[in-house]
């Protein structure tokens, strides 16, 4: 029978069928962070359970560590969990990459970077952006703390098999348009619920042309469309990217793995319950205007009004979003003043993101009154950027060059905006209070964020390049 990429990986991991569409699946990799992972390890202890395969688990305290280079341990949350998390990991013999280690970073950055994430694997983490790892052809998804306890204790998880959806991105991106714009456009067009109950495969010529980091960015926002799983079929680019990374297999085992991975693609006649086509030729840079990732428009668009076809409840939601974000209907999004620029997060803090932003910044200055941060996604990204001199470009322009952390994406480490402040941010959620109580977030690509740093306003980066 013809099968999709998703089916091939899912089927390979079924330990047993539990009936009514539920399967017991083997889990190949578990990532733990210092909030849900910490709670899970405590709960595991309380239940008297043990970690059955600690060697398949990797932990990193990315959420509560701050991006302050002088004191990444400054947050109250780190005080509460940091030491105990490390001790719990040690006791359970779980590899814990500490802040000082050269492997440290945001889990969804270091997974691919260290070769912890491999094509065809199942990978879970107590974090909804775990779908990021799908960019390498891994079936990866976010789970809650209790599910995490179950996985740690059994190396399996009970899941209902989702439906399949394929998004075909066709064509070539124009200069100044990025993978972030592709996925924001999709979410804007389809809505934040379109992927609920689906595993999404991203395909098409535009996806094939993307480098691995661009694919990771696309997959990262799958959950913002409601899809727990988002993935791209692995190809030679993936194998080239992974070869010789820290945790990948070597020699004949590597060759055997690659042979296996080459079979991981959707068969020609496989069926998807839902298919979407997006032509990217005319795609423009996108930016969000509201408090949901589906509140997104092209840079030449205007904040929508309330006179469209909304139902009553949706009308109230849009009205509340406009009220919170402090913008009037009809306001052109280009030209909206910002206070903050955040380049970072598991969405857009990889080396190619920093290179792209630096290319816009080079020789220019951050406008007075704007606070601009670059938070590299990992120690490796930071070191690589510094070896290329990107840090100097940012610092000379007036950016803060920070240390790896989830930082301003999550509001869990002391890095927050003040109430009412407005940011342009390369992260993934513009939710109410996401960057701190009262914060106003506009999601965009790294180059769009860089452009706004220079002008102090939401700006079409294509006018600067």
């Amino acid at each position, binding site marked *: 029978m013809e099968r999709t990429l998703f089916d091939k990986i899912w089927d390979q991991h079924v*330990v*047993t069928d*539990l*009936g*009514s*569409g*539920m399967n*017991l699946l083997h889990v*190949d990799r578990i990532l733990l962070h210092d*909030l*849900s992972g910490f709670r899970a390890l405590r709960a595991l202890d309380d*239940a008297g*359970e043990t970690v059955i395969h600690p*060697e*398949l688990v990797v932990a990193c305290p990315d959420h*509560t560590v701050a991006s302050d280079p002088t004191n990444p341990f400054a947050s109250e*949350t780190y005080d509460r969990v940091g030491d105990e998390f490390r001790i719990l990991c040690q006791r359970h013999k779980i590899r814990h990459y500490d802040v000082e280690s050269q492997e440290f970073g945001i889990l969804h950055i270091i997974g691919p970077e260290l070769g912890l994430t*491999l094509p065809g*694997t199942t990978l879970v983490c*107590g974090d909804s952006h775990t779908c990021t790892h799908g960019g390498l052809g891994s079936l990866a*998804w*976010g*789970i*809650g*703390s*209790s*599910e995490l*306890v*179950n996985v740690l*204790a*059994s190396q399996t998880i*009970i*899941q*209902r098999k*989702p439906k399949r959806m394929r998004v075909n991105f066709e064509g070539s991106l124009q200069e100044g348009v990025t993978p972030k714009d592709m996925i924001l456009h999709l979410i804007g067009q389809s809505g*934040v*619920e379109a992927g*609920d*109950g689906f595993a999404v495969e991203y395909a098409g010529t535009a996806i094939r042309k993307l480098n691995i980091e661009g694919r990771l960015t696309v997959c990262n926002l799958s959950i913002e469309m*409601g*899809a*727990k799983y988002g993935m791209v079929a692995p190809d030679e680019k993936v194998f080239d990217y992974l070869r010789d990374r820290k*945790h990948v*297999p*070597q020699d004949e*085992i590597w060759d*055997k793995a690659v042979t296996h991975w080459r079979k991981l693609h959707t068969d020609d006649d496989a069926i998807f319950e839902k298919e979407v086509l997006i032509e990217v030729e005319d795609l423009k840079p996108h930016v969000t205007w509201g408090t*949901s990732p589906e509140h997104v428009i092209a840079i030449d668009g205007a904040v929508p009004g309330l006179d469209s076809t909304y139902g009553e*409840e*949706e009308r*109230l*939601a849009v009205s509340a979003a406009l009220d919170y974000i402090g913008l009037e209907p009809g306001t052109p999004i280009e030209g909206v003043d910002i206070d903050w620029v955040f380049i970072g997060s598991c969405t857009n803090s990889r080396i190619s993101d920093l290179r792209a932003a630096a290319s816009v910044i080079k020789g220019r200055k951050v406008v007075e009154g704007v606070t601009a941060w670059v938070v590299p996604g990992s120690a490796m990204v930071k070191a690589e950027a510094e070896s290329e001199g990107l840090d100097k470009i940012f610092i000379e322009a007036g950016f803060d060059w920070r240390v790896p952390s989830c930082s301003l994406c999550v*509001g*869990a480490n002391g890095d927050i905006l003040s109430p009412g402040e407005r940011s342009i941010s390369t992260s993934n*959620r513009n*939710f*109410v*209070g*996401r960057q701190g*109580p009262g914060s106003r977030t506009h999601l965009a690509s790294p180059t769009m964020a860089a452009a706004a740093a220079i002008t102090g306003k939401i700006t079409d980066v294509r006018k600067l390049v």
Partner: protein
Amino acid sequence: MQAFTKLTAIAAPLFRPNINTDIITPMQFLVGTSREAMGDILFAPWRFNDDGSENPDFILNMEHFREARILIGGPNFACGSSRESAVWALHSFGFRAVIAPSFGGIFANNCFQSGMLPIVLPEKKVAALVRQLDAAPHTATFTIDLETLLVLPSQGEAIPFKIEEFRRTALLEGLDDLGLMKKHSDKISAFQTTDRRSRPWIYSENFG
């Protein structure tokens, strides 16, 4: 885990689309709040004013709905972050079931870990229930029967719902997932033995 068989309780309508788990339990209150105390921060941005006082217009602050045990949410209820605190906060406040046209996928799984019943009903049916409650809040006592798979509003017809038989049995008996997974430990071992041969790169000896 607490078993769920039949629940008769007040249902509170909160019929807004795409309520995310950041609203249900905001990050700034999460760390340091115990699972049992999470009810105190439930829907904090809506439930409380900036000075910490109660927002009298929020549904759960209205006298009649303070004792609600059933929540009626909008489409894509509890989307976003995987934080299980969303379930714990609802549970700690007293909720035992949520009715909505659809749920965030991670949240729905999390519900079953705490004996919380997520019920999916067609959007029109949910909207009709909400209209009924808006018009006549005193009619808000509903019964949910997991044995017969029926929602019985105080007015109007019983509404059937579906749930995976596997989940239904677990809720009725108060069984958690791990207990069931352990019943399959032989199958898990056998899977790994075979898998180790076909995919040796997954396992520790090849995990540098």
